[in-house]
């Protein structure tokens, strides 16, 4: 599970008239090892919490009940906070553990702060100020004519300003005072990570990764993943984003277009992702991160700041195997074109569709026609056919379709719908493309139908049969040919795996005395191989019936006699050869070194 666990850090004081995103600011943490978190709560205080062993307040600085916190950045133990107090706007400077504060008034709302060597401040009108952190004097003003600055960041000496003009966002890149404009977008969320902007378009539900030159690296459609908004977004690591809708939080790898994990929100609550710790995420040591989110229970008017531990996985193919967003609609069954032809059409296989409709009408006709279709040759009615490699190559989905007609699957239990179509089933069980989701419990089902032929076909040929199913049938079956078939099939599995399974079965109270008796009676290589391993299993001998042990002893004695006899014969033959063979090699040679 990639979302590991979560716990609340604090419950925020009840304040009215503020939208969710204005109620609290969590200063971004720079690394996972940081144990302190700095929180600015509107109309309440600026505080620092220690996260471990359990969240605890270590320091706080009260602010006036009318002050709304707009933004905050923390460097070491110094705080820079942008505050709106009714119609006045100020930049507040604090030091942790100290009661003293320093502030300057500014003409516009402070949209964002970046606290580095200097303090960079973006105002609501778009101006960017460079401020000395000690004296809070404005060193430089870069004016910007568009209103309503929304966010800003300092990216490798570049300042990115995103301004909002009547619902449209436009981007500016400021570098050494040079302003570069970019096209405008509507209704988007965005986040930065490692010199890239991740831009989520709320209406189309697509997310783009954009580099600093505003070249779109990729665009991913999340519409079949996401439910309704409100959406919130955080980018803990390159290509991996956490995006929330109104019911879930999704951890998505954009490069591979896969969903790594999801986190279900509580019902009747509003949630918003605040921030996450940015990690490299390129090795197993750098994939753990923390995410902070708000949870608002409107009924109780209770707002919690929660912390969620998550693992964002390495950005490799391995971490994304079989995690892609699957399109909802089933793919059509295709008729395979032969590459030797000049036609490369994607054709729907109508023959399979006809067969599917025939299944409900006339089962025996369906069986013949389906076998004819799959074997691609004339077939005799009521005749068993097995798959061989010369058969028609088909779309794997066609086999899956046929199998799904015969079996129904509910909660991992297979059942046969209606009558057993034994001829086609006999064929399908031997097909190498038999779908793996229909193998669990298959042997037990076939055993229960009493059709030994199908059972044996399945034991011998069906790909992907689980070793536990084989062992189970081995223990229950008293038919020696079935036992033998299973023993042969077990050669496909690792011995350790088989033994492990026997251990589990024995611990579940299964009795293998009958099986051992069968094995002794079978008296072949495979049965002895298993027998040997079974005896090796701890404590098994003590639970054997004396009758079984006696049989075993008899057998062992017999085998020892045989071995003695063979070794005697071998000695005789060897001696004879030694006497006869007085040859010397005709010649020897030595390779010349080149």
């Amino acid at each position, binding site marked *: 599970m990639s979302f590991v666990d979560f716990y609340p850090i604090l419950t925020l004081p009840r304040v009215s008239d503020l939208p969710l995103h204005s109620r609290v600011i969590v200063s971004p943490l720079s690394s996972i090892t940081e144990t302190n978190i700095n929180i600015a709560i509107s109309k309440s205080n600026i505080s620092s919490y220690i996260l471990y062993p359990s969240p605890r307040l270590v320091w706080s600085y009260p602010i006036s009940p009318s002050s709304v916190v707009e933004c905050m950045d923390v460097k070491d133990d110094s705080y820079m906070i942008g505050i709106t107090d009714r119609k006045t706007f100020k930049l507040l400077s604090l030091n942790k553990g100290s009661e003293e504060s320093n502030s300057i008034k500014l003409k516009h709302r402070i949209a964002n702060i970046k606290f580095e060597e200097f303090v960079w401040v973006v105002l609501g009108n778009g101006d960017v100020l460079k401020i000395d952190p000690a004296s809070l004097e404005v060193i430089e003003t870069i004016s910007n004519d568009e209103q309503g600055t929304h966010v800003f960041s300092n990216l490798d000496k570049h300042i990115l300003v995103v301004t909002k003009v009547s619902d449209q966002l436009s981007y500016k890149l400021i570098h050494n005072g040079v302003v570069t404009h970019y096209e405008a977008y509507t209704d988007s969320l965005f986040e930065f990570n490692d010199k890239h902007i991740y831009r989520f378009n709320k209406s189309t539900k697509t997310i783009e990764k954009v580099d600093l030159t505003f070249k779109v690296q990729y665009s991913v459609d999340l519409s079949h993943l996401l439910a309704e908004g409100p959406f919130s977004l955080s980018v803990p690591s390159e290509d991996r984003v956490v995006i929330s809708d109104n019911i879930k939080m999704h951890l998505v790898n954009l490069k591979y277009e896969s969903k790594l994990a999801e986190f279900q929100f509580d019902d009747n609550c509003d949630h918003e992702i605040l921030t996450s710790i940015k990690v490299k995420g390129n090795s197993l040591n750098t994939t753990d991160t923390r995410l902070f989110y708000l949870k608002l229970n409107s009924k109780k008017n209770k707002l919690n700041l929660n912390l969620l531990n998550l693992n964002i996985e390495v950005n490799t193919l391995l971490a994304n195997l079989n995690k892609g967003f699957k399109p909802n609609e089933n793919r059509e069954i295709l008729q395979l074109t032969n590459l030797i032809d000049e036609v490369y059409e994607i054709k729907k296989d109508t023959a399979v569709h006809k067969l599917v409709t025939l299944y409900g009408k006339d089962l025996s006709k369906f069986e013949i026609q389906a076998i004819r279709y799959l074997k691609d040759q004339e077939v005799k009615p009521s005749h068993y056919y097995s798959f061989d490699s010369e058969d028609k190559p088909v779309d794997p989905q066609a086999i899956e379709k046929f199998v799904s007609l015969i079996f129904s699957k509910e909660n991992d239990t297979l059942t046969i719908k209606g009558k057993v179509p034994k001829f086609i089933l006999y064929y399908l069980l031997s097909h190498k493309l038999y779908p793996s989701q229909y193998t669990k419990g298959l042997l037990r089902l076939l055993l229960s139908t009493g059709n030994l032929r199908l059972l044996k076909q399945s034991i011998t040929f069906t790909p992907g049969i689980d070793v536990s199913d084989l062992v189970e049938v081995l223990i229950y079956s008293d038919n020696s040919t079935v036992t033998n078939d299973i023993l042969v099939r077990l050669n496909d599995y690792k011995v350790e795996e088989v033994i492990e399974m026997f251990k589990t079965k024995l611990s579940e109270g299964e009795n293998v005395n009958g099986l051992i008796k069968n094995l002794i009676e079978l008296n072949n290589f495979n049965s002895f191989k298993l027998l040997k391993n079974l005896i090796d299993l701890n404590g098994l001998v003590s639970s054997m019936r004396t009758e079984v042990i006696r049989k075993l002893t008899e057998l062992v004695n017999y085998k020892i006699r045989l071995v003695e006899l063979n070794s005697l014969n071998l000695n005789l033959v060897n001696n004879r050869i030694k006497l006869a063979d007085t040859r010397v090699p005709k010649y020897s040679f030595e*390779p010349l070194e080149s």
Partner: protein
Amino acid sequence: MEWSISMTNGGKVLDFPVSTGVAGIYSEDGRYFLAILSHQIRVYFISTRQCTRTVDLDLSDCVDAKLDPSNSSNLIVYKTNEILKVNWKERLVNPVVSFGPVTEAISVVINQFEDGGLLFVSGEKNINVTYRSPEGVISRIYETSGVIKYAKSLNNEYLAILNENKEVISISLARFLVDPPASDVNDLEVAIKTFNYKSPIISIAVNNDNIIALGSVAGPIQIIFNDDNDNEKILRWHIGPAKTLHFHENFLLSGGDEKVLVIWQIDNDKTQFLPRLNGVIDKISVDVNKPDNYNLALNINGQYELLVLSAVDLVSRLSVNSIRPNLKRKLNIKNSTSIVEANPKTNHLYLPSGSFIQAFDLVKNEQLFHQTVSSVVPTGKVKSELKLMDPAVSQLKFSSDGEWMCTLDIVNNNEIENLLSQDDKNYALKFWKPASASGWELVTKIIDPHLKVQVLSVMPYQNGFITADASANLRFWKLRNKSWAVVKTLDLMKPESKSVDLAISEDNSVIVVSHDNVVYMVNSNFKLVQPLSLVESHIRSIELVGTDLIILSKTKLVSFNLVTFEFNSLMAQVAVAQGKTYLCTNNQLVALALNIQDSERCKVMLFKPNDLHPVFATIHSTYVNSIIPYNDGFLFVDNELRSGIISTNQLRLKSDESEINGTSITAAAANSSVPADEIENFSFKTFDLNSFNNIFETDNLDTLFDKIIKIVK
């Protein structure tokens, strides 16, 4: 996107089917050597050993070639169905000057007359010596049947024919060379000579004095002197068949499986040897225009190398090679698969064949070097020595930086001792580093890296190599303390199968190993993640393109997305009855070479991993025996030993374009109020097409440069 195929080399070095001459002709002044390849005439300037020009034309069925006596800048090429005159000297648009049809299948040309008349031998077993006048009138000179071998003298005056009755028929054609139409057929001097030595004869030569030499299967060479008594002499040195004989002045040259050129002084039986040549000597000839050079055709695992030696000091003057993939010449050439790898660092092709590895420079179109993977006996093998099997390279791969080469060779245990272990095979995994400009140096040799199970696939992985054996067990080899050792293993222990292949994802996080019809996905810790049964028949090869797994099975080509676990629309049938199919990928495209048995051609196709509609498809004229990614495109080797490069210009253009688009930041710097020295630090200074629009509005070219500088600054 436009793709095209360009054939890059001239095909194999030809071997004339009947003629005892090698497929190389000297120019009249003896300074140029014209090597005849199956699809090219290569002109070498002998003193610099450089190929000065090439003429491309299809010569695959060429039986003989002569310099045009009327114009020495023309080469006359005799093919089975036509005669071509090819200008090799000047650079002409169409070098084929004139050509005529062939009335009768020519086997060996005795003389080409200046006026266009032709004296030739046709047939192999039942032969006719025929004169064709310039007007095309055919006159028969001599006819005989039951012929085993025949040869002509260097001056074309004598023709010696060996027949099944152990007779040598000697014909003097001297008078026909002077004035053929006037000569009377009835005056033909025919002498029938018998000889004593009983072993079957496989080679024959006759000199200008009508001395005849016969080479036997057992080795001894018999000389029949042209005197009244038909004196005989037997030269003994060869212990294998004396495959080829040729007279030169008063010397007899012979060669065979021993890889030794033997020079006999006929008068006093003194011998001189040139041992350890690259291959079995199949043909020796001397050209009238350059009589002080010996020309040898050396057979290296079924492919030929032309070697020119100076008769004076026996020093090599020139050698002509083609690429030599490992084709089983005698078995079924149609189903041969060769191994070709391109060194990612130098782009040279490496072709293992037997125990040799040939490195070939495609740009220069020449062999770089030819080295053995293990110390083999450098001399040729005869008789029971043939049972000593040399190791055969079955795998060759380079690390992605081209700094390491990994080979696997198979050594059959020698069966001399008739031991129980005689059918055992040993495998040797070898790691090489570049030694010098020519060749690689062995760093580590591992005997039986997977015990007695055959390694079927080797792939570079991280900075090492992964090997997969017939039971789908994996070993990961890495350089440790100056030698290579196994660092990780995974034993899947499947039943042994011939269809095992490896594919590794670009980020090295997923290793896919295929066994029979199942693919197993393995993570970088060598733990099995998941088996998948995606095709119903044996898998021939697997490749990974991004997140798509491409599988070529006996019957199907499928593409499976490993992230969504869904099949892509690239899913098609590959009929069983067709010839072999080869698959390779670069990081974007899938290339498929599909040999078509009916027409003996090959369909070459390029696909995107998720689209059934090929990006490019063409029919190549012969079978292809391997295909590999090469530069931005692909390279294949066909059965004529040509290599074809599938490439596109568009690909590179496109990436250039996107770079321009991507960095089209408007240079608004000039108008801002920032000091100029700060602007210079602006690292994002790039321009789009519009940046330079204004500068062309003036017609004063003198200031143009200044204007550009202004914008750039």
